[in-house]
């Protein structure tokens, strides 16, 4: 046998080159009791990268509320969170970032992000039924942004549409801070019968280990390490090879995976994402407290002459690692044969707790599985943090610094066409939102997407939310607001907020100001998640979202929330139903324009506090809306969020081409009343017939409830003065994004 493998004893220079710290190199030597060879060093470098090990975040993540009555799998237990939704069914759901790949190659970067998050769901045995995404880009006017938006949207669309799971919701936000480093967060939710899930675990000495799906090529090698670096001009060259997504193979892999689970032959399974084979073999082995012998020449490869470390670390998409009960090989192989997919035994389970990787008879790496993984030997760091100067400075902003404008109608038009507030139709019409015939929001819009659970009376509600401008202004309050808004969206749709998945997009954690934002975001999230009893079931952390010239992005802890509707008929919609219905505002009107789109974009005041927010008030308002919906007293419910009350009313008016006539509050500045973004407010409409009952309940609730006007046939009036028609605003609102992007 010829020894052709490149595998010398490594040096501290190699370690540095692969992104390991000197102390980490020392630690590896200690763990192994010798100097690692190059293959072993590569293994540690990816497994101990930020992306795989969460070494700079895990100590804080552990402080998040993780327990809840309906949780079947806690954060970190499985590939995704698992929530009991009743009727013997569970929902697996998770959100994940694919920011750095999307910055380099937006189409493939976004597409493979969609592929990866869906594999996390179906590797557990759950069939994905809905997808969402949360996207952030630089200013829409820039050519680079347009290139990124078109590529990302096409990538998400082409992959998700062909894969055949509807995209039911999402958000798109534009700000200068994302100019170099866009954020692409993808979420998926799937359904599985309770007790029929599959774990990412490896046990049973002698059981065969299979690799199934696509062949392995040199895709995205060291991608995981790459995702843990700042983006610089050289990044494009840094990535040896982009990952190419193949949604067709993913669809086959989905069907084959679910079929193979049904055979009962599967001991454990994990998809291959970041750090490929090494990540799946080590995590499954560590969890099962077993070892594996893996023979790399048995891995089906796309290219000849791949090095052992390349096969180990390849991030080729659409692959799974499956540990099968010995003797049931035929059952498994028949399924993959049916679906024309690769299926190869590459090794077996051992009792050694070590991973031994061989190539053509030569042992190339011998490492303890436990030493590689999060919760095992992977390093955990406490990072320094300190409050940035801007935080105190932002508190100096007072509304009096802005003269109250008189051109309110002009501002209303401006905001209705602002890319952050206008319809995202240009984006979402490129996604198949209806395949699967479960999207109940297509013909009945609501704040959260309502997804039918076929063969039951149930539905789930899904939303992704984060106003990162608020988080930048005040990480703790801003993140509490993000959680509250997600809960509010679910509540306004008739659902019960149930659990959270998060995608924490931050800058470089070694920057104390960035880390201060991170720590406070976690604190705010904890506070709000405890209040709403929505435990955090998992998600991911994406650090290093910054560039050498623009600095860090706004701290963006995207909240994906799952809500449950035990009876889907309890669902509530956001659109006004008919002229004459009374419009009520629940929650306090406040003289506040802080961090509003109005203040930030129209007045160009970039530094102000987070908007008014009180968690207790928020909770009380949501409880009240739940009661109103349950008693079928309201015709619509819609939360006041980005753009303030005027945009809220417009969004409710547009679907049925109705209008509204409202009166402002003389104690509140008109601009604050119409465009301020003070939190914890919900607009409901009430039929005259229900008015009396509504007012009685409002009185009992002890909340601030005010009648602000009436639904009209299509004209918009503010304090009896004409403000235009809904038709005019509708055109601006619908066409704003397309005008930039077509």
């Amino acid at each position, binding site marked *: 046998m010829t020894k052709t493998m490149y595998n010398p004893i490594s040096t501290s220079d190699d370690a540095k080159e692969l992104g390991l710290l000197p102390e980490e190199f020392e630690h590896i030597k200690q763990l192994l009791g010798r100097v690692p060879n190059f293959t072993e060093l590569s293994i540690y470098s990816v497994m101990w990268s930020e992306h795989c090990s969460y070494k700079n975040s895990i100590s804080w993540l552990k402080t998040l509320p993780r327990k809840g009555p309906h949780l079947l799998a806690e954060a970190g237990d499985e590939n995704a969170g698992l929530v009991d939704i009743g009727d013997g069914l569970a929902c697996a759901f998770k959100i994940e970032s694919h920011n750095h790949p999307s910055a*380099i*190659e937006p189409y*493939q970067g976004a597409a493979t992000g969609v592929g990866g998050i869906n594999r996390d769901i179906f590797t557990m045995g759950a069939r994905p039924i809905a997808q969402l995404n949360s996207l952030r880009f630089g200013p829409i006017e820039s050519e680079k942004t347009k290139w990124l938006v078109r590529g990302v949207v096409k990538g998400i669309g082409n992959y998700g549409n062909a894969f055949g799971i509807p995209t039911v919701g999402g958000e798109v936000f534009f700000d200068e801070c994302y100019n170099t480093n866009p954020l692409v967060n993808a979420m998926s939710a799937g359904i599985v019968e309770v007790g029929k899930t599959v774990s990412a675990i490896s046990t049973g000495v002698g059981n065969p280990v299979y690799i199934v799906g*696509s062949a392995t*090529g*040199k*895709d995205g090698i060291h991608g995981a390490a790459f995702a843990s670096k700042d983006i610089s001009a050289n990044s*494009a060259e840094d*990535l040896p*090879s*982009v990952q*190419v*997504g*193949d*949604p*067709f*193979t993913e669809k086959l892999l989905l069907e084959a995976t679910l079929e193979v689970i049904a055979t009962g032959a599967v001991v454990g399974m994990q998809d291959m994402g970041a750090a490929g084979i090494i990540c799946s073999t080590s995590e499954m082995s560590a969890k099962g407290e077993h070892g594996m012998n893996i023979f790399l020449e048995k891995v089906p490869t*796309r*290219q000849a002459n791949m090095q052992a470390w390349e096969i180990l670390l390849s991030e*080729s*998409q659409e692959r799974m690692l499956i540990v099968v009960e010995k003797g049931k090989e035929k059952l498994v192989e028949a399924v993959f044969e049916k679906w*024309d997919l690769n299926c190869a035994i590459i090794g077996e389970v051992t009792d050694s707790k070590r991973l031994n990787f061989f190539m053509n008879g030569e042992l190339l790496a011998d490492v303890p599985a436990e030493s590689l993984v999060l919760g095992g030997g992977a390093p955990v760091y406490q990072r320094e943090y300190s409050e940035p100067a801007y935080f105190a400075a932002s508190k100096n902003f007072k509304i009096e610094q802005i003269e109250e404008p008189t051109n309110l109608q002009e501002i209303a038009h401006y905001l209705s066409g602002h890319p952050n507030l206008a319809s995202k139709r240009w984006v979402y019409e490129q996604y198949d939102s209806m395949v699967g015939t479960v999207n109940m929001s297509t013909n009945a819009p609501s704040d959260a997407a309502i997804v039918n659970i076929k063969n039951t009376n149930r539905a789930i509600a899904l939303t992704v939310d984060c106003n990162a401008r608020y988080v930048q202004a005040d990480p703790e309050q801003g993140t509490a607001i993000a959680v509250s808004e997600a809960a509010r969206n679910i509540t306004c749709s008739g659902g019960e907020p149930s659990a959270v998945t998060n995608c924490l997009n931050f800058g470089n954690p070694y920057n104390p100001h960035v880390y201060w934002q991170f720590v406070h975001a976690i604190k705010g999230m904890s506070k709000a998640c405890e209040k709403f009893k929505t435990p955090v079931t998992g998600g991911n952390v994406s650090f290093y979202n910054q560039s050498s010239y623009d600095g860090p992005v706004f701290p963006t802890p995207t909240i994906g929330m799952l809500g449950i509707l035990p009876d889907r008929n309890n669902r509530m919609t956001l659109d006004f139903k008919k002229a004459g219905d009374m419009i009520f505002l629940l929650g306090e009107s406040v003289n506040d324009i802080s961090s509003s789109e109005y203040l930030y974009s129209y007045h160009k005041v970039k530094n102000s506090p987070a908007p008014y927010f009180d968690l207790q008030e928020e909770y009380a308002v949501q409880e009240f809306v739940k009661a109103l919906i349950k008693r079928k007293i309201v015709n619509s419910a819609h939360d006041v969020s980005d753009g303030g009350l005027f945009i809220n009313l417009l969004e409710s008016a547009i679907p049925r081409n109705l209008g509204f006539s409202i009166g402002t509050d003389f104690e509140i500045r008109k601009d604050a009343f119409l465009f301020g973004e003070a939190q914890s407010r919900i607009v409901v409409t009430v039929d005259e017939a229900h008015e009396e009952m509504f007012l009685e309940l409002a009185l009992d609730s002890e909340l601030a409830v005010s009648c602000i006007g009436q639904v009209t046939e299509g004209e918009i009036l503010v304090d009896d003065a004409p403000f235009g028609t809904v038709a005019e605003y509708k055109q601006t609102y619908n066409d704003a994004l397309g005008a930039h992007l077509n």
Partner: protein
Amino acid sequence: MKFTADINIMPLKALLDPQGKAVSGSMSNIGLPQISNVRIGKHITLELEAATEEEAKGMVDTACRKLLANMIMESFEFTVAKA
């Protein structure tokens, strides 16, 4: 002087070509299992005005690098001839 260029753009050899892979697999359905390793790219023709063939080649090269090919994912080759 007027030139024409014939440009072939192909997915990089190292990358997965999902389309080519699916087409390869279907060859047996039409009775041609002997065919394998299908890779699918683009063919582009264009006309341009340049003083010399060298200059024409330079312009086509720039067009390929900047727009016609995605250099992260594709390679290109071309020929230039007098129209």
